[in-house]
């Protein structure tokens, strides 16, 4: 047991030293979901280290003790078929380990797939995050603003990302806030995140999506709610409205810098929502054409509530 902890300690030290004492992104969580995941990773590393060390110790012992050069020429190894007790142990211990890991895995999976804990009953901030070759679009229906390639979020509040794609399957990933999830063009997926402290994080598409994949990144900035509200106010005063024509231009394959707009594309190009996602017969273009971008705030709000209710019903 001493050896085990010594080696785990050594391993952690080596990792820490090698990375210049800067913790690895995934193991430096800044939100409750990422924290859960980092904990799971550390638990599994510890258990796996135990298994690896057991195998290594056995292997080294056997290789030293039974190497041919050490034994007399006349030595004839015995014939051994197997032993019920040994085999029971060899099956039993892995079964126990897998059982423990299963409990951890299932529990934590349910945790990260739900609204993050620890923010009381604060309403989640809903952000529609959609990808196009090779950009990220962030629509804030509640605030009625939209950004490209950067994401501002309030701290200490659950975040609910609605993911979809205008092209290949992508994967929305902010490692320090939590694990990734796919964005696809024929349905919406939901990712629950949260940020505990202000800071700037790396976000990217993690799923290969063609030529511009490597640069398909975005910046994330978490700030207190007050600051976030000020930013929204500022955007509303200064940014250009997002027109359908402008959005079509942005969708063209390529890379863009950071852009900011009032209004969202959700009004004229609604996401693939509902049970059938994009597989339904409705044409994406005409179902919401009645709303224009200025009067849509309320409409979107209603739509969001309806959608949220549907989502909850679905989950029950």
């Amino acid at each position, binding site marked *: 047991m001493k050896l085990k902890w010594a080696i785990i300690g050594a391993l952690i030290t080596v990792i820490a030293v090698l990375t210049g004492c800067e913790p690895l992104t995934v193991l430096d969580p800044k939100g409750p979901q990422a924290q859960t995941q980092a904990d799971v990773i550390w638990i599994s590393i510890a258990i796996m280290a135990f298994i690896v060390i057991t195998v290594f110790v056995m292997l080294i012992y056997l*290789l030293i003790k*039974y190497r041919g050069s050490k034994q007399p020429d006349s030595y004839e190894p015995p014939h051994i078929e197997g032993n019920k007790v040994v085999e029971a142990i060899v099956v039993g211990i892995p079964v126990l380990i897998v059982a423990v890991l299963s409990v951890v895995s299932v529990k934590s999976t349910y945790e*990260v797939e739900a609204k993050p804990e620890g923010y009381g009953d604060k309403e989640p901030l809903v952000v529609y995050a959609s990808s196009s070759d090779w950009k990220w679009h962030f629509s804030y229906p509640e605030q009625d603003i939209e950004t490209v390639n950067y994401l501002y979020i309030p701290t200490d509040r659950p975040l609910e990302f609605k993911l979809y794609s205008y092209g290949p399957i992508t994967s929305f990933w902010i490692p320090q806030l939590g694990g990734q999830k796919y964005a696809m063009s024929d349905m919406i997926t939901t990712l629950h995140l949260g940020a505990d402290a202000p800071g700037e994080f790396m976000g990217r598409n993690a799923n290969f999506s063609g030529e511009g994949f490597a640069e398909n990144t975005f910046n994330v900035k978490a700030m207190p709610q007050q600051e976030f509200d000020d930013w929204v106010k500022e955007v509303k005063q200064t940014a250009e409205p997002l027109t359908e024509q402008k959005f079509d231009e942005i969708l063209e394959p390529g890379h863009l810098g950071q852009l900011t707009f009032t209004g969202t594309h959700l009004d004229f190009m609604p996401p693939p929502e509902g049970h059938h996602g994009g597989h339904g017969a409705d044409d994406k273009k005409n179902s919401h054409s009645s709303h224009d971008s200025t009067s849509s705030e309320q409409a979107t709000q209603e739509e969001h509530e309806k959608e949220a209710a549907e989502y909850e019903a679905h989950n029950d």
Partner: protein
Amino acid sequence: MEFFERFAVPHPSPAIYASMVAIALTSIAIVIGLTYFKKWGYLWREWLTTVDHKKIGIMYMISALLMLFRGGADVLMMRAQTAVPENTLLDAQHYNEIFTTHGVVMIIFMAMAFIIALMNFVIPLQIGARDVAFPRLNALSFWLYFMGAMLLNISFVIGGSPSSGWTSYFPLAGNELSQSVGTNYYMLSLQISGLGTLITGINFIVTILKMRAPGMTLMKMPMFSWAGLITNVIIVFAFPVLTVALAMGTMDRLFATNFFTTTNGGMDMLWANLFWVWGHPEVYILILPAFGIYSEIIPTFSRRNLYGYNTMVISMVVISLLSFLVWVHHFFTMGQGALVNSIFSITTMAIAVPTGIKIFNWLFTMWKGKIQFTVPMLYALGFIPIFTIGGVTGVMLGMASADYQYHNTMFLVAHFHLVIIPGVVFAMLAGLTYWWPKMFGFMLNERIGKWAFWFIAGGTCLAFFPMFISGLDGQARRMYTYSEATGFGIWNMLSFIGAIGLAIGFVLIVYNIYYSTRYASRNIGDDPWDARSLEWATHNPVPEYNFAITPQVNSRQAFWDAKKKGHKLFKGGYKEIHMPNNSGVPFIMAVFFFIFGFGFVFSMWITVIASLIGIIACLIHRSFEKDHGYHISAEELKKSEVELRGAK
């Protein structure tokens, strides 16, 4: 001119032009060489038309080694590109093509060919049979595989390589986002070689079930043959899924169907599911024969019987069942929700139990043994620790919540390479060295072999361990470059150095083959390793009829017990042996398949129809052909046996 424009490469570069010239020159050199040395007849009679499982196995092996170098050249370019941040050696498109072909070539055309090579060569010998159940189908399997491999390999000089990853997820692989014919090549070449694999599967199941030597019950079968049986059962259940998925994908690309499109009722997630319903069992198709090889090598060089034979068999059966129940773990992040992910998380981790049993059984096999550090044994001993690390990180990936952080990162890349390289590549190199004398009648040099082993084992560790760290630090896989600020540079540089180490190891193996062919002693007897199973009871190299007299088996280690306990394997005198005739039909049919595939890739329908007629004509020819084989008489047999024994 317009007709020829379609064959142009969409993203040419000096390297590609250089390859075109190299391919042309090599082809001319081969043709001139064969003509000059008057070897066309030899090539046709001894190789192109052969139905002998041993020669087919050797052809699979040569092809696998060639593909290993093709896939390896891809690796060196990839790792060189990412060795330093913001490198401009390759652009994004080339990098994408290279990692795509690396994956396809290594899995489908290298690893699959290598395991089938050894199964072909060894299993009939191990079970005391004269050949496989359907020798001519076996030849067809090989030629279909070979033509599939060639079809993919010409893609980068004619029309363009696939570039949407070896998983080829739709809609990225659809017409709109992959406009070159590259993905057509992917669909057709996998389809053609996949047919070959499916035929192999059927062939070997029948061979193992029906053609074992008298007395060899299933539970007396050597472990590699057991692994072969289970592998081929998985092949027969898994490959039809790939066949169907590829057919649907081909139709989406060429006939405007909407199976995997995101409009008109198509479903891109369906491809991901079908691909991995085949793809995960495929992983076990690769690993089980490797387990079988280690189960032969470890007892041989521990001088002891395999520990826990029964649990070894049971664990393989359990693995084969579970392999069909875990495919969703390849996309935990697709949004199935917590319940589905929890179920697949548990089934995934459950595979660790039977796998763990095997590792411990190999360790217990060494217990009280007398371990000899030969080259095959070194690979087996290197496999245990490296595979254990690859395996336990697999369990970590199986925990769905944490997988959201590992998915699509270098952590995953490190995991599957640390499973596949020690699992498949080490096993194949071990098996190659171990059975080499059986194939060619001389042994590979041990000293060069050991140097190669240390380069390969060290290179593997150096190339892939850093990826665990860069993955946890947020480096996504398949990125052609990254900025310096990310700090990934050092880890990628280490990987590059490791890749060079691996390359040196493989070059040493080729040198070893050359060196041993020239200098190794031909006087090695029939049992140079002092081995335990039936394949060592015949001569080195093996005569075409395998065993002059059909062996009779009454224990698990038939040959060992014949040596040590005086069991008599060969009873009775020489009797006439019935042998199958050579046939050119499988080769010709596969050539038609190649033309068929090529025509399909470029939508040249007249070519497609003409070659299809050719294929059907071959089938009809076979149906009406009267081929009763030939006989080796008892006298001829006696003469040949005396000669083979006299040679020592």
